[in-house]
């Protein structure tokens, strides 16, 4: 049985900030599978109702309508929810978050040409949404708290590239901007920042990160620490309960530390790991994470984790609109950010997983394929 608080059949979220928001993709095309698939595989669906309590001792899940469902094994795929603004005015009408399908129509309704959109947060979601809003003819300003966009996930040269791309398309990218309050009579009209600047807004879209959904697990006594704590087989601290996806804090075997990832690939792969564990055919989750972002006609492809490195090599020239940044620890490749360069990205996935040692001279030469830079 599959329980979900959203009424729709399981669907893909990445297009929500891109083609689906732009109105270029029907909701039907977001679905992973049609209903017949679930029927064929005898998966009972309980959609549009929230699981509100977990009683691990009694092995029961309680739904919002009071129904209690018993289980032998339980898998928690709870995802993450948007971090919310807490400043004065944060609850005004016209302040939006983008996480689920239901968030989209109210935003779309306000995205008229020339509407003034202020995006709070210059991360993936903020920038993708900004690009889509601009594509629809809105006046768009992005307010980023750090000194550059996507500062937590990419190198400065990549931040600069994307800031330039956005500005070239007429998006205002303002960094070092801390939002202190939202103002308006009844609905948001202005965003005020710590430096005193005031940004007029017909709507505000907030993308300031996500928080793992752990309440259900935490209240049931499962170990949680920035995510539901699981091992490499997706097992929680309760032998009957597993967890997978954005909601988990899990070991990365490749990087030798615990991570919490917001990543489609990780969600798919942990789901497979959990399924195998449920079938008592456990196989450890051992995966190099990867991520992508579409902004205007640019594809940003990231593979690996770049928190621990001692060298960086730029391959190619950002002016050509196709380049990559390789992160090295000694001669070992640990992460790559590729902008419009799918070959480097795909090669990197392999090289990082294999813990390949690279030749820095070859690496710096864009004419030598990354896969041959060993």
């Amino acid at each position, binding site marked *: 049985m599959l329980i979900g608080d959203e009424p729709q059949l399981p669907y893909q979220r*990445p297009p929500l900030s891109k083609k689906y928001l732009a109105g270029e993709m029907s909701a039907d095309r977001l*679905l992973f599978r049609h209903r017949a698939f679930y029927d064929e595989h005898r998966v009972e669906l309980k959609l549009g109702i929230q699981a509100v309590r977990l009683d691990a001792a009694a092995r029961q899940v309680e739904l919002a309508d009071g129904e209690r469902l018993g289980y032998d094994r339980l898998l928690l795929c709870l995802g993450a929810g948007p971090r919310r603004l807490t400043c004065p005015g944060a609850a005004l009408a016209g302040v939006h978050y983008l996480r689920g399908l239901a968030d989209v129509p109210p935003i779309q309704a306000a995205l008229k040409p020339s509407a003034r959109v202020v995006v709070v947060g210059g991360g993936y979601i903020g920038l993708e949404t900004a690009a889509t809003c601009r594509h629809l003819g809105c006046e768009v300003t992005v307010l980023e708290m750090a000194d550059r966009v996507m500062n937590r996930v990419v190198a400065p040269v990549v931040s600069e590239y994307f800031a330039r791309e956005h500005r070239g398309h007429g998006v205002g990218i303002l960094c070092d901007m801390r939002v202190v309050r939202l103002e308006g009579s009844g609905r948001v009209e202005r965003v005020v920042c710590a430096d005193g600047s005031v940004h007029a807004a017909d709507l505000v879209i907030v993308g300031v990160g996500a928080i793992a959904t752990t309440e259900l697990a935490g209240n049931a006594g499962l170990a949680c620490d920035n995510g539901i704590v699981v091992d490499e087989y997706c097992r929680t601290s309760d032998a009957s309960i597993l967890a997978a996806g954005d909601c988990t804090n899990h070991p990365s075997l490749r990087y030798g530390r615990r991570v919490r990832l917001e990543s489609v690939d990780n969600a798919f792969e942990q789901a497979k790991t959990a399924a195998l564990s449920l079938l008592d055919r456990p196989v450890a989750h051992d995966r190099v994470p990867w991520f*992508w972002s579409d902004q205007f006609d640019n594809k940003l492809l990231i593979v690996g984790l770049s928190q621990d490195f001692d060298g960086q090599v730029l391959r190619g020239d950002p002016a050509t609109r196709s380049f990559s940044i390789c992160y090295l620890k000694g001669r070992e490749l640990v992460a790559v950010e590729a902008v419009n360069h*799918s070959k480097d990205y*795909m*090669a990197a996935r392999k090289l990082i997983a294999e813990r390949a040692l690279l030749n820095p001279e070859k690496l710096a030469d864009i004419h030598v394929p990354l896969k041959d830079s060993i």
Partner: protein
Amino acid sequence: MPKIVFTEPGGGRREINAPLGLTLMEAARQNGVQGVVALCGGACMCATCHVYVDPKWLARLEPREEMEEGMLETAWEPRANSRLSCQIQITADLDGLQVTVPQRQGQ
């Protein structure tokens, strides 16, 4: 709707009616074709909707673009007739197209 015939990784044959306007990947997934994973949902970013197109049909498809080319280079067992099915639009003249799904997706 054009009919498309898939050979699945286990050797099974599945004939589907592919709606116009979708991509080959979407039509495959909606019809439960095994082995077409499409993690990224059709953004040309994951190489998990890799298929082998019957060589007779290759010339009738729009050629690969650079991103797709790069994705396929280190995909699992790429061949001359490899394509990412998310990059193929279903059109009326694809009626009868035959494709084979590789034994594995990704790398």
